[in-house]
């Protein structure tokens, strides 16, 4: 039988040590650092850097696509010449192209197709019969093949009057130059943004050190090494850098995602081809998103590293 007395269990005596919390208070209090303002600055910098990085990825990707597409295609343009059979000239030009090694296929644009190409500029519904609309032969080149276009050009000049060959080389060179310039500009902007971030963090660290001077002095006299003191600040700034970097990076990723979806809105409209021709696609792909994530890590690392260096430098000046 259980009596009420037997139910009473012995309560182990609690020592004062048992009441102590398991987590230690940070030596440098978080609220002594102008954290919110710094997070906002880092977030803005991270956003700008991520947008720049995404734009570089976008331009590089689009330029690569343009170059590949343009380089795999050459165009023979045949101007109507009085007294000549244009269709026969087109056929002869197509035959010469087909006979050239490395050519995959040849397509002669019909008169209607050629006139439709002018619609964006001249509008539809016009009678173009009286105009000398040039006709096109689009020549697709096999992948990795390098046909002798000079020989084809010469043959066309000899055998088809009014025929010219456009291999788009000028366009390719200009595009390559533009892409290279865009990448260089992007890298410069990235470096500037990182430099601005470092300066902001250095100022914030100095401010934090000034407001925590009593803490630093106590740490110093009780035998804390500079690395230990710097570590106390670095921990805070790493967290602030991660927070700011993540906010800016995620905002940029959302922007690119929306921009990618924005391209979908043009589907089936007259602007679709122009947008596609100009940008290919706004989607930066997995590589772009991964690059932004790496950038967030770099910004957090730069923030922590800058604060550490600033603490070391300032402690060196105090000594």
């Amino acid at each position, binding site marked *: 039988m259980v009596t009420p007395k037997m139910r009473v269990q012995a309560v182990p005596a609690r*020592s004062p040590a048992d009441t*102590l919390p398991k987590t230690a208070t940070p030596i440098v209090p978080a609220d002594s650092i102008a954290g919110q303002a710094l997070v906002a600055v880092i977030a803005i910098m991270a956003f700008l850097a991520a947008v720049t990085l995404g734009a570089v990825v976008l331009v590089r990707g689009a330029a690569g696509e343009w170059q590949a597409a343009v380089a795999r295609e050459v165009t023979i343009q045949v101007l109507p010449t009085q007294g000549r059979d244009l269709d026969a000239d087109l056929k002869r030009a197509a035959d010469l192209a087909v006979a050239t090694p490395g050519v995959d296929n040849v397509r002669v644009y019909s008169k209607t197709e050629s006139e439709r190409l002018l619609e964006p500029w001249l509008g539809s519904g016009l009678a173009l019969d009286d105009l000398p609309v040039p006709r096109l032969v689009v020549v697709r080149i096999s992948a990795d093949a390098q046909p002798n276009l000079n020989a084809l050009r010469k043959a066309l000049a000899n055998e088809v009057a009014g025929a010219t060959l456009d291999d788009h080389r000028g366009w390719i060179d200009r595009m390559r130059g533009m892409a290279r310039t865009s990448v260089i500009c992007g890298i410069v902007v990235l470096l500037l943004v990182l430099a601005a971030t470092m300066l902001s963090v250095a100022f914030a660290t100095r401010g934090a050190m000034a407001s925590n001077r009593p803490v630093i002095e106590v740490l110093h006299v009780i035998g804390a090494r500079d690395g230990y003191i710097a570590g106390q600040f670095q921990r805070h700034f790493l967290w602030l850098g991660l927070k700011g970097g993540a906010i800016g990076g995620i905002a940029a990723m959302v922007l690119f995602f929306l921009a990618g979806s924005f391209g979908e809105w043009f589907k089936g409209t007259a602007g679709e081809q122009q947008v596609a021709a100009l940008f290919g696609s706004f989607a930066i792909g997995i590589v772009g998103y991964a690059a932004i994530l790496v950038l967030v890590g770099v910004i957090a690392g730069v923030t922590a590293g800058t604060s550490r260096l600033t603490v070391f430098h300032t402690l060196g000046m105090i000594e």
Partner: protein
Amino acid sequence: MVNNPLGAIERKQPTPTGDVGVVRFENVGLRYGLGPEVLRDLSFNIGPHSFQFLTGPSGAGKTSLLRLLYLSLKPTRGLITLFGHDVATLSKDALTTLRRRVGIVFQDFRLLDHMTTYENVSLPLRVLGKDEATYRDEVVELLRWVGLGERLMALPPVLSGGEKQRAAIARAVIARPQLLLADEPTGNVDPVLARRLVRLFAELNKSGTAVVIATHDIGLMDLFDARRLVLHEGRMHIYE
């Protein structure tokens, strides 16, 4: 306070310093910037296990001398040897290592207001990188010794002047320093507590720590028969 105040630290004696003195000053002078010398031709020794008062009128240079002793200042001239090392020739890291062998009680306590009494006292051990579990009981025991066993979780702003003083002393001795420096440790407490605190320093001294107490309280010094280092106009007079 508990009856046997040394119970917390008697078990572990400081590392013996052998024949090497704790502190040796030879013709030490100190000036701030281009100003006049505030300390002139100081030559004295502080031996292991010794107890001394550092006294003199306000502005005599007591705090400056203490700052030289805890390596917060470098002398303008002369030689300072701490635990047998010429401090002028030591690297920054070596100076930090030496600083760990010195405990300091500041006149204004310098407790960190955002940390509990327990955390303030355990800070020197935390800085050494020790695991909290290894020193938890030791810190609690020491706080009970100085009568703060019930104030472990209190933040310094809510402690009385005497409690802050005892917390500051506990922080200074927790890492078992070989030299304890106290700047006006009785300046903020009533005479009864002041005597208790000095007795506490005397007990610490018996356990092997060399003690230097800076004070201008003549009455307090008369209560203890100890060596007196008297600073006057930057010069030192020693009364054994």
